[in-house]
C-alpha cells in the first residue's frame, strides 16, 4: 500500500473537477481518490476471493487434513490415523496402476495429439486451401459434445455383438471374428484413441490461433530467401509460435490428466481395472454407491499424492509458463 495516507479533499463527495494536467510519465503519483478507488476494487474482488478461498484454497488444505483420518463422511472426522492412508496409497499396486494410466493419457495427448494437431493446423492455415473453415468446424465438433454421452455412443458403436464398427469391419472383410475393443487388453488404447478424437479440435484451434500470430511478411521474406516448406516451418513458424506452444502444452497436460468422464462412461474403469485412472480410483473410494462405507480419508490421501506428483510435473514446465504470463500481463 503506497498511497493510503491522504483522503481526497472534500471528504465523502467524489472529486469531479478534472485535474488541470496529468503528467503521463508518473502514473504512480499520489492522487486524491486513490484510496477510494482501491476500496471499490477490493469490493469488486470480494466475491471472487470468497469463492476462491471456500472452493479452491480451503478444499486443498482440507484434502491434506482429511487424509490423516479414517473417515466415512458421517459426522466430523475424528479417527486420526497418522500417515496410514498415505502408506496404503503408496504401497497400493492398484493406485500406481491407475496413476500410470492417467500419465499415459497425458503422454498420448502431448506426444501424439499435439504434433498431429499442429500439422493439421499448418495445413488448415493455408489460405489457398478451399473449405478450410468447414474442415476446422468438423474437426472441432467433438470438442463441444458431452464426453460422457459420446463415450456411451462409442461403447455402442464398438460393441462386439453387432456394433457399427464391427459390422463395417466384417462387411469389408477386414476381420473374421468381431474385435473386442473394450476387452481387458485393448480397452485402454481404445479409450485413449477416443480421448484424442475428443480433444483434438481444441488443440487444433489453439495451434491455429498461434499460427495467426506469425506475420504474413515473415512467410514472404522466407519465400524470397528461397526457403522450402519444412525450412520455413523449422526457422520461421516454430520459433514464432513456440512461446504460445508452451501454454498449449500446459493446457493439454492439464486437460488430459482428467479422463474421468470418458473412462467412467465407457468402461467404469474396467474390465478388471484395465482402464482405471486416478480420478476413477478416488471416485470409487469416495462415492461408489456400491460401497458400504465411503473412505473419504483414504480417497483424499490418494488425491493428495496425485496432486503433489502432478504439481511437480507441472513445475518442471513452470519457469517457461511464468515468463509467458509475465510477458502477457505487463
Amino acid at each position, binding site marked *: 500500500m503506497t498511497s493510503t495516507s491522504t483522503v481526497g479533499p472534500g471528504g465523502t463527495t467524489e472529486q469531479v473537477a478534472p485535474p488541470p494536467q496529468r503528467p503521463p510519465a508518473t502514473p504512480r503519483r499520489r492522487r486524491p481518490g486513490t484510496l477510494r478507488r482501491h476500496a471499490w*476494487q477490493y469490493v469488486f*474482488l470480494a466475491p471472487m476471493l470468497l*469463492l476462491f478461498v471456500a472452493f*479452491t484454497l480451503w*478444499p486443498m488444505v482440507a484434502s491434506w487434513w482429511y487424509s490423516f483420518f479414517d473417515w466415512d463422511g458421517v459426522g466430523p472426522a475424528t479417527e486420526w490415523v497418522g500417515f496410514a492412508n498415505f502408506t496404503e496409497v503408496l504401497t497400493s499396486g492398484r493406485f500406481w496402476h491407475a496413476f500410470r494410466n492417467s500419465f499415459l493419457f497425458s503422454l498420448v495427448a502431448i506426444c501424439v495429439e499435439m504434433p498431429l494437431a499442429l500439422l493439421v493446423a499448418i495445413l488448415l492455415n493455408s489460405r489457398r486451401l478451399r473449405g478450410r473453415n468447414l474442415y476446422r468446424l468438423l474437426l472441432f465438433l467433438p470438442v463441444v459434445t458431452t464426453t460422457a454421452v459420446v463415450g456411451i*455412443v462409442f*461403447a455402442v458403436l464398438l460393441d462386439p455383438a453387432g456394433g457399427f464398427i464391427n459390422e463395417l469391419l466384417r462387411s469389408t472383410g477386414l476381420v473374421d471374428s468381431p474385435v473386442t475393443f473394450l476387452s481387458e487388453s485393448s480397452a485402454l488404447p481404445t479409450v485413449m484413441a477416443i480421448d484424442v478424437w475428443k480433444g483434438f479440435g481444441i488443440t487444433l484451434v489453439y495451434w491455429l*490461433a498461434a499460427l495467426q500470430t506469425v506475420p504474413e511478411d515473415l512467410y514472404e521474406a522466407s519465400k524470397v530467401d528461397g526457403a522450402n516448406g519444412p525450412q520455413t516451418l523449422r526457422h520461421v513458424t516454430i520459433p514464432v509460435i513456440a512461446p504460445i506452444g508452451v501454454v498449449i502444452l500446459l493446457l493439454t497436460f492439464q486437460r488430459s490428466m482428467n479422463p474421468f468422464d470418458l473412462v467412467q462412461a465407457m468402461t467404469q474403469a474396467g474390465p478388471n481395472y484395465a482402464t482405471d485412472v486416478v480420478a476413477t480410483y478416488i471416485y470409487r473410494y469416495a462415492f461408489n454407491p456400491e460401497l458400504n462405507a465411503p473412505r473419504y480419508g483414504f480417497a483424499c490421501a490418494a488425491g493428495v499424492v496425485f496432486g503433489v506428483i502432478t*504439481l511437480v510435473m507441472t513445475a518442471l514446465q513452470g519457469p517457461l509458463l511464468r515468463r509467458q504470463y509475465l510477458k502477457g500481463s505487463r
Partner: protein
Amino acid sequence: MRRMHLWHLLLIPLCLAWIYPFVWMISTAFKSEREVFLGGLSVLPKEWTLDNFTRAWDTAHFGTYLSNTVVFSVTTVAIVLLVSATSGYALGRGSLPGRKVIVGLLIATMFIPHGYTIIPIFKLVDGLGLNNGLLGAVLATAGPAHVVPILLFMGYFAGMPQELEDAARMDGASYPRIFFRIMLPLAKPVIGTVALFNFMAAWNAFFIPLVFTLGRPELRTLGVGMYSFFGQEATDWGGLAAAATISLLPIIAIFLFLQRTFVEGIAGAVKS
C-alpha cells in the same frame, strides 16, 4: 495450387469418419427397434419412427434431465460471468496493491487435478445445506476459481484506453457505474467468449453433477442421465441414440450458430 487440391482427398474422408459417430447417433435415433436389432450399415432409416425419442423423453426422463441441464448451465454461467468480470476489472485497472500476489495464486491453482479436491467441496456444499438441489452442483462448478475467464477480463479491461475512464470520472461516474455502464458493455467479446465456453463446460459437465445427484435421480443432468440409462438399458441402442441426440443437439446447434464468436474468442485469448 494443384498440390493444395490433393489434400482434399485426405481431408474429406477424414472429416466424414471424424463426425460419423454423430451421424450414426442421429440416424439410429430414428430407426425402428427391429432395424436397429438387425444391424445394417445404412445411414437412412428404412422407416422413420419417433418411438425412440418418446421412450427416451418419458420413460428414461430425458425431458427432466434436459431442463435440469438448462437450469444448471445458465446459473453456472451467470455466476462465473459476474464473479470473473468484477474481479477481472478490479485486477486489470488501477495498480491494486497485492494484485501480483492474487494473480500469481490464481495461476498457481490452475493446475490442480480434477479429483483432488472434490471431497472437501462436497462436504462444504453439504455443510451449507445445499446438497438437496441443483444449486449444490452449481456452486461446486462455479465456485472454484475460473482463472482463464478472470485473466481474459483482466487483460481486456487493462487494454482499454485510460482516457475513457478519465472522461467518465470527470462526468462524475462512480467506480461501479463506470464498470456496469461503460466498461462491461465494451467487454462484450469477452463476455461472449466466457459465457459460451462456460455454458459448454457446464452443459458437458459430468463428474460434479454425478457426485451431487448420486442419491437423487430426479436432479440428474443429461450426461449423468445418459450414464444411468446405459447402466440400466445397455441394449436399447435406439433409445440410447435418441437420448444422446437430445443431449448433444442443443449444444451442437449453439456451437454452429456461435462458432465465429468461439473461434475468435480463442484466437484473441491466445494472442493476448
